[in-house]
């Protein structure tokens, strides 16, 4: 029972990380109708900047602020220089261009920091464990990630539902031509949205840095899962991103943990040994296929 609770927390934490990445990506796709493969690169930039600033300044909080600002800046610059003209273009062109950006960023990071993974750590006041209930010890850092993720979710909901910016975002997602016709500076809006998406990806990256390997190409490992999340959740909606992320996080975690023992009850141990991990790795794709078969627009599509 304790194990199940612990695994649920793990699934929640993974889901929250996916949500931070998915939120930015789904906004960019929903509002600017752009497929951005380079989102993983921004995640990587966030992780690297945070690690770098933490080493240079010794203050984790300062490093976080600088990393977020830095990723935001990188995102905005990239948008203005390379991506602006792509909004009008085909998805295909966007895929090709953003893939080119992935190669560029990975190599740039490799030039600046080398190909080897770099050392990144949790600050002392964030390490250690929490005793949530008797017998359930959970790493403090991961717990903080869950809190931050949920906090961001609430914050995003507030911005989208209750502020003018959010209203513009929703309007733009519905009908961008109309919004432009109403005199809103669409270009600026897009840049702001992209920048926010970049900052969210950077946040995910800097949170992930201490627990995963910080190396060139780290974004691509997560990118596919993020795409699965936004497809399941529904493109263009933050709610969908949250739902999708939590579902994927849970299914993946619980699948890895419990699928093999469950299979072992019906199959022979050796069959479960090979089938278990194989199916567990395909589980989120199976889930996506099932969701798309019944609700092709995803679970909570942005209303059009």
């Amino acid at each position: 029972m304790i194990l199940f609770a612990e695994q649920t927390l793990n699934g929640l934490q993974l889901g929250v990380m996916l949500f931070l990445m998915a939120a930015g990506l789904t906004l960019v796709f929903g509002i600017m109708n752009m497929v951005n493969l380079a989102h993983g690169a921004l995640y990587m930039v966030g992780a690297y900047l945070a690690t770098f600033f933490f080493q240079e300044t010794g203050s984790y909080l300062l490093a976080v602020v600088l990393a977020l600002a830095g990723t935001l800046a990188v995102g905005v610059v990239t948008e203005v220089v390379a991506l602006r003209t792509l909004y009008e273009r085909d998805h295909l062109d966007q895929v090709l261009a953003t893939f080119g950006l992935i190669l560029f960023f990975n190599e740039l990071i490799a030039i600046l920091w080398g190909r080897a993974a770099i050392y990144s750590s949790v600050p002392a006041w964030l390490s250690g464990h929490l005793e949530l209930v008797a017998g359930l010890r959970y790493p403090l850092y991961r717990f903080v990630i869950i809190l931050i993720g949920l906090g961001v979710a609430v914050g995003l909901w507030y911005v989208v539902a209750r502020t003018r910016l959010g209203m513009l975002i929703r309007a733009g997602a519905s009908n961008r031509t109309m919004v432009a016709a109403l005199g809103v500076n669409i270009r600026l809006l897009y840049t702001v949205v992209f920048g926010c998406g970049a900052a969210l990806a950077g946040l995910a990256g800097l949170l992930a840095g201490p627990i995963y390997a910080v190396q060139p190409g780290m974004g691509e490992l997560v990118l596919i899962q993020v795409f699965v999340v936004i497809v399941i959740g529904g493109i263009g909606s933050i709610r969908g991103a949250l739902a999708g992320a939590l579902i994927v996080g849970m299914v993946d975690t619980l699948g890895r943990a419990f699928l093999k023992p469950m299979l072992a009850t019906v199959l022979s141990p050796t069959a479960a040994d090979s089938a278990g991990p194989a199916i567990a790795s395909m589980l989120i794709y199976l889930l996506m296929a099932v969701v798309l078969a019944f609700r092709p627009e995803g679970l909570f599509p942005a209303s059009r």
Partner: protein
Amino acid sequence: MNRRTVLLIAVLGLLALVPPLAAAFNQPFYLDLLRRIMIFAIAASSLNLILGYGGMVSFGHAAYLGVGAYAVGVLAHHGIHSGWLQWALAIGGSALVALAIGAVSVRTSGIYFIMITLAFTQMLYYFGVSFQEYGADDGMRLAKRSQFAGLIDLGDATSFYYLVLALLALTLYLLHRLVNSRFGLVIQAARSNEARTRAIGLSPYPYRLAAFVIAGAICGLAGALWVNHTAYLSPEIMNWTRSGELMFMVILGGIATLSGPLYGTLALLLLEDVLQGWSALPKWVTEHWQLYLGVILVLVVLYARRGLAGLVGGRHE
């Protein structure tokens, strides 16, 4: 004949001259390099049918390379070396898999289609990776090249080269006929304006599914050729990054053009080879060639809107 067709025939002609040229200059390596490029060009051309003409952005096309390759490899592993049987199974098997995947995927569109095709290819990849019997991700050696009983020896580099060239030309011709037939026109119409297509009474679904299956089958053939070329089989060919590479070859060359995929493949693979290996380039290029490739890709998209074939101009097919 318009400019583009003339150029295409010229390029194919040049490719035909490669074996004697390579022999004359004692550079047999280029024979292999261009053969590999042509095999990928066949795969990219098949993708162009659904991606370029059909507007169906399939991120899972490399799966059929894998199915074709495995069909040949597995049969060879069990002692069946007849090229006819192997290649028939490669094409037929890929068609069946495409039918299965397509039946589910073609109903969706846009980003959903991209993702679901990606999902299926990942599943096949993980499946191949865990299949211990056929080497799992270590892959396995091709026991013997496909045998065609005296008709042609695939072990002979030049014969194999000309076979691939012939199949490439055949594929391009087939696609040309297909695209300009009523069937092809419906596909293109559906990509252009689906609502209108429906309005005139045509349901795009069966046409799209058929195109998907045909594309898969041709790609299966490319897979059979590929495994004979490398003499080695590994599930890594089904990885989503490979699908991405195929897409880039198509997009780079110019979608919805007959010659586009060939140019795109030539450009991408030759560029990779040159950036990495050309001794005339300074170390800071060859060591970080991916940086420069990335920049080139972005520039091509931004400034060469219709891809490389688009640069040549001519009738918009």
